[in-house]
């Protein structure tokens, strides 16, 4: 047989496409042509694969080899195609039987010794293979935990699979030789056992961990999230955090240095409910793409927390890269919290780039190699000092800033971005009195329980709608389907008539009022809730839109 095809996966952002790898061995002088829009690391696959085949005790054809990756128009990146290319060429030589790899998707980078090396993006790849209806996915042994984690989710959350949710087998192997064994009819247990033994042998020879691509950063999941009980005082800020967590409202904290803004923001992920399996899969897929998914254990269920430094570029925030497009901080904060400390110090372009994802919940990154969209539905927390010197709060006696500098400082934030912040809050420094009081503060667990109850109420109310939290409900729907009490509406109308609140602002106040009602266990928001929501909007805080 001179023609053979195997299946591989091309990742475009978080989405994967099944790619057919066709190999043709023709008469002619030895040559190896790889076509189908490969990038540099994929073009180098030719030399890796040839050496891997020769060093696995099999022979490379001494004739003209052509490998095509179809669809040929889809740009393909990375080294994950090595295994499928090798298998296709071996298929042409009848080393792999024609039916040996039917319905099997292969993913993995080969070393020159024929061993499979860990790859980035195994999790979304396995998920995509399952969606495409593959019955078996082969992944590198070093990525087995990641692949097993997605396997777990696929078993519990079955709808929508290409093969009707009927199992997608995930097989981890450690070398090309094991793939041949698997294709020639060795049982799964035999191959896994052999792979394990092989891996143990490798570790005995070289105890250093294998370098995985893209794992420059260590995993950000700490042993335990910081607890709200550590925060002394700040009752208003605690309350705002609780509302933000319950209703998904974006939060702006303004306060002098040392007031505890960073400390408060870091405790917000701990108040959010744990991720459900689908969300956890999304979050882990993004981490896998960035190469920071922990290699052991199950899918992390805690919402992510990202705190990019204020020198971050637009590409670092929204994602980028010239060939392999990687997710940025806002996508890494998907289903979690994005905290921008010293927000006015961020570049204007970087801050403006947040507007689109804040509305749509995803971000599309356009590069020469293609356009990729990443999910980015995050809870935004901004922190700022009241002025450049930081002491322009209260009567501002310590403040040394000129008025025009103060204005310039906040002008970076004002406008559309500020308007999207439902909760705007002054965080005052903790006084000696509240330090000395030494009362045991509420822990995260207690607040999380209240948040969970409030979210339960709102999700029950929104059960026939696509929105998950109050902050996502469009204004017209909000006013139409869930009107507030008439006295509360009067209060808002009064504000609008006096010009201190825009109509859009009124909608935002209503959303927060609904969250307050959910937290209080009320059927609908009354005057108190609307008044509180108005106060939390803190329009006097900034010169931004009311």
């Amino acid at each position: 047989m001179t023609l053979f095809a195997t299946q591989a996966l091309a990742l475009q952002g978080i989405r994967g496409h099944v790619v057919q790898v066709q190999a043709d061995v023709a008469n002619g002088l030895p040559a190896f042509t790889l076509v189908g829009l490969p990038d540099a690391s994929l073009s180098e696959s030719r030399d890796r694969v040839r050496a891997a085949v020769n060093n696995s005790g099999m022979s490379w054809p001494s004739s003209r080899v052509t490998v095509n990756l179809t669809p040929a128009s889809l740009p393909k990146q990375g080294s994950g195609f090595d295994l499928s290319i090798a298998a296709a060429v071996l298929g042409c030589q009848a080393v792999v039987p024609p039916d040996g790899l039917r319905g099997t998707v292969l993913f993995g980078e080969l070393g020159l010794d024929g061993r499979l090396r860990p790859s980035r993006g195994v999790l979304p790849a396995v998920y995509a293979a399952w969606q495409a209806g593959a019955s078996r996915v082969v992944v590198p042994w070093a990525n087995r935990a990641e692949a097993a984690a997605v396997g777990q989710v696929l078993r519990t959350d079955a709808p929508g699979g290409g093969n009707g949710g009927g199992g997608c087998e995930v097989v981890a192997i450690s070398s090309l030789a094991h793939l041949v064994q698997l294709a020639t009819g060795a049982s799964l247990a035999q191959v896994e056992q052999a792979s394990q033994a092989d891996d143990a042998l490798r570790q005995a020879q070289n105890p250093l961990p294998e370098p995985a691509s893209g794992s420059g950063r260590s995993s950000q999941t700490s042993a335990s999230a910081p607890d709200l009980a550590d925060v002394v005082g700040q009752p208003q800020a605690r309350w705002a955090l609780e509302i933000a967590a319950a209703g998904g409202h974006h939060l702006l904290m303004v306060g002098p240095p040392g007031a505890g803004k960073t400390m408060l923001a870091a405790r917000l992920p701990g108040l959010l409910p744990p991720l459900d399996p689908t969300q956890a899969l999304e979050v882990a897929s993004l981490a896998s793409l960035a190469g920071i998914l922990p290699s052991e254990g199950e899918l992390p269920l805690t919402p992510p927390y990202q705190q990019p430094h204020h020198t971050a570029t637009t590409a670092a925030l929204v994602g980028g890269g010239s060939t392999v497009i990687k997710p940025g901080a806002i996508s890494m904060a998907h289903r979690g919290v994005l905290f921008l400390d010293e927000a006015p110090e961020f570049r204007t372009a970087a801050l403006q780039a947040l507007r689109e994802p804040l509305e749509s919940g995803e971000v599309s990154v356009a590069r020469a190699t293609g356009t990729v969209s990443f999910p980015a539905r995050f809870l935004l927390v901004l922190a700022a000092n009241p002025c450049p010197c930081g002491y322009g709060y209260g009567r501002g006696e310590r403040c040394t800033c000129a008025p025009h500098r103060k204005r310039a400082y906040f002008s970076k934030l004002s406008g559309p971005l500020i308007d999207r912040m439902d909760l705007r809050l002054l965080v005052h420094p903790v006084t000696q009195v509240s330090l000395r009081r030494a009362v045991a503060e509420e822990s995260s667990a207690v607040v999380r329980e209240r948040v969970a109850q409030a979210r339960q109420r709102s999700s029950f109310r929104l059960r026939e709608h696509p929105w998950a939290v109050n902050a996502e409900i469009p204004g017209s729907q909000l006013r139409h389907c869930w009107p507030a009490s008439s006295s509360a509406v009067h209060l808002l109308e009064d504000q609008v008539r006096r010009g201190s609140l825009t109509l859009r602002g009124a909608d935002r106040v209503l959303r927060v009022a609904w969250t307050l009602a959910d937290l209080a266990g009320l059927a609908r928001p009354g005057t108190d809730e609307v008044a509180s929501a108005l106060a939390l909007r803190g329009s006097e805080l900034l010169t931004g839109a009311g």
Partner: protein
Amino acid sequence: MRATEAVGRYGESVAAAYLQAQGYAVVARNWRCDHGEVDLVAHDGSTTVICEVKTRRSRTHGTPQEAVTAVKVERLRRLAWCWMEYARTHGLTPRDLNPNLPPPNPMTPVLRLDVVAVWLPGRGPAHAEHVKAVGS
């Protein structure tokens, strides 16, 4: 150097015998011109075959076919045209040597570049691999 030369000579005789067994008429061996040397020239029906012979005694230096690089194919192509001119002027074209050939057919090429790879294992018979039309 002399040993490798001898191996090359022997390989060429193996290749010539192989081509004759395939029904080719070997017209010239080690034909030289200003551009270099052609190992074998043979006639496959009405097609002139310019043949490069590569001989190997072991696999330590890769397959013989691999030794024929694009540069060597290009040199072979130049040599081929020299031979064609020489054959035309010296009455060595396939039709000159065999007047009974069928009339020209546009589907049969006039000229072809082949590589014959000869393996000379330490023991056992020599064995030839024939790669046709390498220039296309």
